[in-house]
């Protein structure tokens, strides 16, 4: 683990990704405490202000402090995206590992069906599920998790197939272990590394997807300081103050870049061939 961390720091991508994601996680944890203003209090006299000493990033159409809204909204955006990716990954990993373990016709049937489900674009899938469940941040999270599941199942299965051929799995089968034991205890731990890489990159995608759903009015609801929602709400006022649209856009892009870099850095660090 310490070795991995050292190799991750060694590449420029890994280092930058580590820093960006680290800062973002820090904001997720302490954001609400360090925010200088209340993110939802209106200040009619302070509307459409540009960056200033009091409001570092300016204010929005209700005079709310944009910096505070970004700091508090990190949880609504980044944390939700991470949870959605995690949930989708767990479900996909379970499905993919099971499929690889079963093998033969069952595996074929599961994978063909997953391929079919994959032909529904993620955003469309998420839209359909949110339509079904009703619009809210929690449902958007669930929708993204479900939309990610088939893709993650596919990745996991291909890794798991390689693990399935390993001798320790044959040994476990020979010992007469149960299917559940073999999947959970022998196979899953060994397919974790490539899956973590894929998940990290997907967090970037989830941040974008989550913000997009909120932007379309199907995710987080006003007055929540979710970043996608902030972009959406400020579009009507962008000629009055472009700042209120630039900052949340920048925040979304920064998180996505951070997770993309970290994912690529992790892939290189975990790949024995590149060391």
């Amino acid at each position, binding site marked *: 683990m310490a070795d991995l961390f050292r190799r991750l720091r060694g590449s420029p991508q890994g280092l930058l990704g580590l820093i960006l994601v680290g800062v973002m996680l820090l904001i997720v944890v302490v954001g609400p405490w360090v925010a200088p203003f209340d993110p939802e209090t209106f200040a009619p006299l302070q509307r459409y202000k540009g960056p200033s000493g009091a409001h570092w990033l300016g204010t929005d159409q209700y005079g709310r402090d944009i910096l505070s809204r970004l700091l508090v909204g990190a949880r609504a955006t980044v944390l939700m995206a991470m949870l959605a990716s995690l949930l989708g990954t767990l479900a996909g990993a379970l499905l993919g590992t099971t499929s690889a373990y079963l093998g033969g016709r069952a595996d074929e049937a599961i994978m063909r069906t997953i391929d079919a489900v994959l*032909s529904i674009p993620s955003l469309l899938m998420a839209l359909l599920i949110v339509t*079904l469940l009703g619009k809210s941040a929690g449902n958007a999270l669930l929708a993204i998790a479900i939309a990610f599941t088939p893709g993650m199942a596919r990745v996991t299965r291909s890794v798991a197939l390689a693990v399935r051929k390993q001798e320790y799995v044959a040994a476990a089968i020979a010992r007469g272990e149960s299917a559940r034991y073999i999947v959970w205890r022998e196979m899953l731990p060994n397919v974790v590394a490539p899956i973590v890489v894929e998940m990290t990159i997907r967090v970037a995608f989830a941040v974008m997807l989550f*913000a997009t759903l909120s932007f379309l009015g199907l995710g987080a609801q006003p007055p929540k300081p979710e970043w996608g929602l902030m972009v959406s709400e400020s579009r009507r006022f962008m000629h009055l103050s472009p700042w209120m*649209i630039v900052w949340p856009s920048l925040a979304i892009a920064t998180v996505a*870049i951070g997770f993309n870099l970290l994912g690529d850095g992790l892939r290189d660090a975990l790949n024995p061939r590149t060391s």
Partner: protein
Amino acid sequence: MSLAYFLKRLALIGYTLLVVSLLVFAITQILPADAATMLLGENATPAALAAIREKLGLNDPAWVQYWRWLSGVLHGDFGVSMRTGQAVGPALLEALGRSLQLAFAAILLTLCLALPLGIIGAVNRGKAIDLFVSVKSYIGVSIPEFVSATLLILLFADWLQWLPATGYVPLSEDFARGVRHMVLPVLTVSIILIAHISRMVRSELVDVLHNDYIRAARLKGLSRRDVLFGHALRNALLPAITIVALDVGYLLGGVIVVEEIFALPGLGRQLIVAIQTRDLPSIQAGALIMASTYAIANFVADLAYAWLDKRIQYG
């Protein structure tokens, strides 16, 4: 490409479309709000509700309803919109045409820019220009369409006032104005694709350039240019076909958002309107058409790949 491979692939796409139709129907059918209530409103009398349920066949078991819907779709009948009272099929197909216009323009622009960028990056690997291309593609894949669309509108329509912010003019009506309206949407959709595909072309080409046959070609006395265009590029671009087809999924998702922002009356916008008004037949048809487009794009890509690369003979 063997006949067996073709038939197997054909069977697969049939299965894919079947699963997609089942899924779309299942998701929309278990919507919490009941279709009859949606049509008549909350204040409808129970008798009126019962009558319309009977008329729409909502009392039948789910599989009977599915079969009725599917056989309608197979005959080109996508049902009647709950919002407009008109047939869903013709309206959506017209919208699909506009979306495809947008999608093809975006793919064209992407290929024109992503291939040179990827090649430049791979050939100058590790140099400043490679870093520049990489940084640009990282930024490209990390900005959601709604953000880039908004920023582009802010820049080109609001500040510079070069291009119209929203709206749509058919190309057949006024070509110049139609093109001006298409520039920003096409640009928005292309950004992510260009970033993704140029990155992929770069890494494929870097891999290929490490092969022994490339070194052999160089040792044989061929120029770098001949080796690059005669030997390396061909092999590096083959996987690109599959990636482009897979990216059609991103593209379709992007189209939904971009059409909504630029008020472009395509399939994506129809779908958003249908979702917002809970117009079931339109949601079902829109989702089905969109997923089928993606499935067919992948089908064609697989066939093209198998045709170009003779080694692929299995599923």
